[in-house]
Every structure is written in C-alpha cells, then in structure tokens.
C-alpha cells in the first residue's frame, strides 16, 4: 500500500513531464482506438454492402455446385425450403435464383449472356434489387416475358428500354431453349464486369425457358448482422433436413473476397504497432529520466530496508497510474470521436469499388475491440518500457546512490 502511495504521489511530482507522458499515452490510445474502429467500421460496411447488395450472408446450393456449377445441380422444391428457412432465428429474407448461359440478340447484335432468374419481390427485399435499376423499371411481380439488361450488356447489344431480345440457350431436358422478351429496364449491380453479361428474367420465365420448373440453383439469405453467421448457417442446415443441400456463409462462397478483406485488415496492425512504438519511446524517456533523477531517493529507500522488488514495483506502478489515467481519459475522447464518425462518416476524396460495390463514404464502428485492444496494448507497452528503468532503480547500490546529487 505504501509502495502505491509513493508511486501515486511521485507521479504528480513533475507535473509537466507527467502531463506530457499522459498525453503521449492518451494520444496513442485514442489513435489506436479510432484506427481500429475505423478499420472495423470500414470493413463491416464494405462486407455488409457487398453481401446485402449482391450475395446475401448465407447461400444454399446443391452439394458440389459451388465447386463446379452445372445446370442440373439444382435445389428442388425451393418454396418449401424457403418456408423452412424463414423459421430460423435471425433470418430476415431469402431469394431464389436460377443461373444459365445463352446467347442474346437484339436486332442484328448478339452477345453471350448470363441468364439470371430472380423473384423480383423477394430479390428486392433481400438485395435491394429494384434500387439497381438505372433505366426503365424493374421486372413485374408476375412472369410477363420481361427482361432487364446489365448496362454493359445493353451497350454491347445497342439495346434500349422497349426493345425485344431473343434468348437462345439449352433446356435441362436437352431441348433448344429460345424465347422472346421485352426489355423493361437496365440494371447496374455495381459489378461492372458482371453487368456486361447479366440478363435478368422473372424466375418463372427462366424456369420455363430452361425447363427447370420449381427448381433453382441458389437461395440467398440475409440475416440481422454479420456476427456468428456459422451458427445461423448450422441452424438452417438442421432445419431444412436436406443433406444434399449445402449451406455456406459468405466467407465460404466468396472466399477470395474474404481472404482479400482479411489481408487488408491485417495491414491495420502495422499502424497500431507504429503508434505503440511512439508511445513506448515516450514512456521509456520519461521513466529513464525519472529513475536517473531519483537515484539518490532509491538509494535511501534501499538503505532503510525497502526491498528491491518494492522499488521495482514502485517505478512500474508510477507508469501504470499514468497509463490508467490515459486509458480512462483516452476512452472518453475516443468514444466521442468514434461516435461522431459512426454517424457522419468521412467522405472519401475519390470513391472506390470493392467487390463490385462503389463506396464514397466510410464509417467507424463502436465496438469493445476498439477499446480493449488499445488498453491492453498501452498497458503492456508502458510496462515493457518501464521494466529496464525499474530494474535499474531496484538494483541501485545504496551507498553509491546516496552520494549522487
């Protein structure tokens, strides 16, 4: 207790130096906190936009479809399956999709296309489908031989809203599939490359064209938040009771995107390391100066019977007191900044596209990580920086130290 008392009072002796040290640690804490909140917020935002706008958080496919897609690897009786999925906790929406490839012709222009059959109502609820229509309108809620063309594809085919498009493909029964559709709108999904080939049909129209009645290739599911998706996926798998249907989270079916995000996120540790290095140098400087100045006092303390361990703890405690003050005040500062940036975000000087989604503003997120990681790091840095000086203080030779002026 007396060791703590001396450490506490010592920390207020050199007010200017203490203030500077506390400010160094406080600044380091706040910067680290904001950096983590910014990184987590940005990635959560990118992931959320990417998954909510396109893929969904969880997808269901016939086993093996993701590794080797095929017209014949379908999920059957998707409506019953969807009804079962809806009963799982945290599931918000689901949307069925059908995929195939074919040839589309508008007038004399032809191009290879990716045929995507969607349920407009469910797709809009799941991935904001209608918001992506940039010209004309979205598909009617019931099948009406309508088509939406990706903006890139429309350019290739020199097509405009109101034109007719002929699609030629292959039916699941081996027949030649072809039909005529009216272009009701153009769509920009955010994935510019995908939009060069994307052609959307009503799910029922696509099923008729490809002879895949009541069958789909994919069911996209969105849930309330990105946390613990594995648990939701497992719950869906249990609920549907179909071993031939695979349930995968976005980390699995968009593995390359996930790996890229993880790699980017790892990079933020470097900035944290640099911040902590600056803090460590500041703390080391303070403690070294303190120990050298108080060499005589440590000699006296040792002379009157204070153990080396007690002197060691005294020095470390003094820095720990400053670290705790820095963390408490730094938390308040970081919270205010993080909160403000989580609401208003920061406009990017130039927008960027990630995974087909365009971002022009990024936000922080207020989470426990952005407080406890900097707190632990500041404490460890402060302790590490004070170990050597504390050792020097504990090992002073009393007789020699007391001759110091």
């Amino acid at each position, binding site marked *: 207790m007396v060791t703590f008392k*001396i450490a506490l009072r010592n920390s207020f*002796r050199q007010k200017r130096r203490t203030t500077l040290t506390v400010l160094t640690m406080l600044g380091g804490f706040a910067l680290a906190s904001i950096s983590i909140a910014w990184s987590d917020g940005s990635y959560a935002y990118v992931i959320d936009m990417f998954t909510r706008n396109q893929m969904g958080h969880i997808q269901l496919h016939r086993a093996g479809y993701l590794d080797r897609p095929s017209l014949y690897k379908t999920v059957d009786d998707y409506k019953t399956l969807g009804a079962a999925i809806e009963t799982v906790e945290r599931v918000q929406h689901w949307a069925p999709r059908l995929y195939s490839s074919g040839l589309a012709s508008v007038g004399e222009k032809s191009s290879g296309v990716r045929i995507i059959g969607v349920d407009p109502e469910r797709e809009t609820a799941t991935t904001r489908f209608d918001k992506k229509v940039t010209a004309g309108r979205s598909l009617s809620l019931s099948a009406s031989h309508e088509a939406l063309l990706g903006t890139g594809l429309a350019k290739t085919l020199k097509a405009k809203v109101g034109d007719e498009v002929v699609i030629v493909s292959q039916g699941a029964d081996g027949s030649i599939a072809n039909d005529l559709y009216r272009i009701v709108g153009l769509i920009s999904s955010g994935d510019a490359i995908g939009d060069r080939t994307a052609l959307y049909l009503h799910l029922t129209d696509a099923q008729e064209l490809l002879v895949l009645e009541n069958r789909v290739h994919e069911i996209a599911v969105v849930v309330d938040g990105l946390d613990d998706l594995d648990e939701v996926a497992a719950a869906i798998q249990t609920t549907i009771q179909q071993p031939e249907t695979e349930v995968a989270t976005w980390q699995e079916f968009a593995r390359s995107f996930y790996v890229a995000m993880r790699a980017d996120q790892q990079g933020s540790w470097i900035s944290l390391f640099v911040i902590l290095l600056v803090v460590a140098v500041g703390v080391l400087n303070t403690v070294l100066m303190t120990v050298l100045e108080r060499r005589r*006092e440590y000699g*006296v303390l*040792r*002379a*009157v019977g*204070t*153990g080396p361990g007690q002197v060691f703890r005294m020095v470390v405690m003094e820095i720990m007191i400053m670290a705790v003050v820095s963390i408490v005040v730094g938390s308040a500062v970081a919270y205010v900044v993080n909160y403000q940036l989580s609401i208003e975000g920061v406009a990017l000087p130039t927008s960027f596209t990630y995974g087909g989604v365009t971002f022009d503003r990024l936000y922080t997120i207020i989470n426990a990580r952005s407080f406890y990681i900097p707190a632990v790091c500041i404490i460890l840095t402060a302790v590490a920086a004070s170990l050597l000086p504390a050792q020097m203080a504990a090992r002073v030779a009393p*007789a020699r130290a007391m001759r110091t002026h």
Partner: protein
Amino acid sequence: MNADNDHKVIIAEGVTKEYSDDGVPVMALRGIDLTIEQGEFAAIVGPSGSGKTTFLNVVSGLDSITDGSVRLDGKLLSSMSGRELSDYRRDKIGFIFQAYNLIPVLTVEENVEYIMLLQGIDKKERHRRVRDLLSQLGLDGMADRLPSRLSGGQQQRVAVARAIVSRPALVLADEPTANLDSKTALDLIDMMRRLNEDSGVTFVFSTHDSMIMARARRLIVLKDGRIDRDEAQA
C-alpha cells in the same frame, strides 16, 4: 556465537575496503578491528577522507568489504544475500544521514512510520509510536507536513524519529549535524544522547565537529583508513 558476544552489536575484524576512483585504486579502510557494545554512544571522528562514512557503510551492509569480516548483532554480513541484508537493515539498523534523506512525497508522520509499514506492524501500534516520538522530539503539530516545509533541524529530528521508531539494535548516523547550525546541532546530539540513555539504543555517529565529539562517550579516531585512537570519554 558465544555468550561474550551477546552484548556486542558490531564486531569488525580486519575490515579492509578498497575501491576505484576513476580507475585509481583507493584504500579507504585498512584492517579495522572494532567492537561496539550494546548501549554505546560512540563517535567516529577524523578528517575528510579518513574513512568514517565508508566504515559506517560497510558495517551496515550498504557497501561490501574487500577483506575481513563484520558481524552485526551476531550475524555475519558477508553470508547474507542482498534481500537478507535489506531485511536486516530494516529490522536492526536505524539510519540518520547528513542530508536528512526523508522521502519527499511522504508527510512527517508517513516518513516516520514508513519502516514500520515495511515491517508489517499494525496501524494502531504504528500511530501510537509515531505520536509518542513526534511529541518526544518536539515535532507536535507537524505530522501532516511534507519535509519541504520543515527547517533543516526539524527534518533531521524527523530522520532521528524514523531511525529509532522501529526500535533497532543500532542507529548509525553519518555526520548528522553537518548541515545544521551549532545550536541546532548540539540540541540534536543532546536529544540523541537522551534517547540513548533512556531507551538504551546504541548510537554510532561520524562527525568532525569538536563540540559534537565532546558529547560522545566513546571517541574512535580514524586516520587514513586506520583506527588512530579509541578512547572512552566522561
């Protein structure tokens, strides 16, 4: 240890101390043989550089010896580890320094009770002893003051209180009056002598002040690291 040693607080035999001063070897003590009995009030005197401070440092374990042996209250110092020496100083020796050396961030009361805190003496007993001693040493009403708000004489009295409050076997004082004016110095020495007579605490102090020497009951004169004279005084 035999029965004859029971009353001997310090037994120094052939104590030699050599140290290096900027690479130049200096022989500070040259084979000192000295015994201090319990209850003595002894002064170690001699000119600057005669080895007074070095002797006090080696008999308290603050500094090592080059040769010979020192027994303090029967214990051979050279056989103790750093930690043991630390505990031993805490429990057996009280120190009074020329520059007072109080802990600047602790109040008078906290400075005096510091060693008792290290010893784990309970709060009630600590406060009783501190209160009694401060009163005895004329420091009433100063318990809550920081050392920086005391005069030199007051600080040295606090240092005396700190040195004796844990009831050590020996109090070592290195030039305790060097920074005090004559009157305050004599008052302090008289006070130490009273404590010696009243409580039987053994005092060994170094000085080169002739007025202070006259108050000692034993005078040990050092010259060039050797005992030049060792005589009892009235």
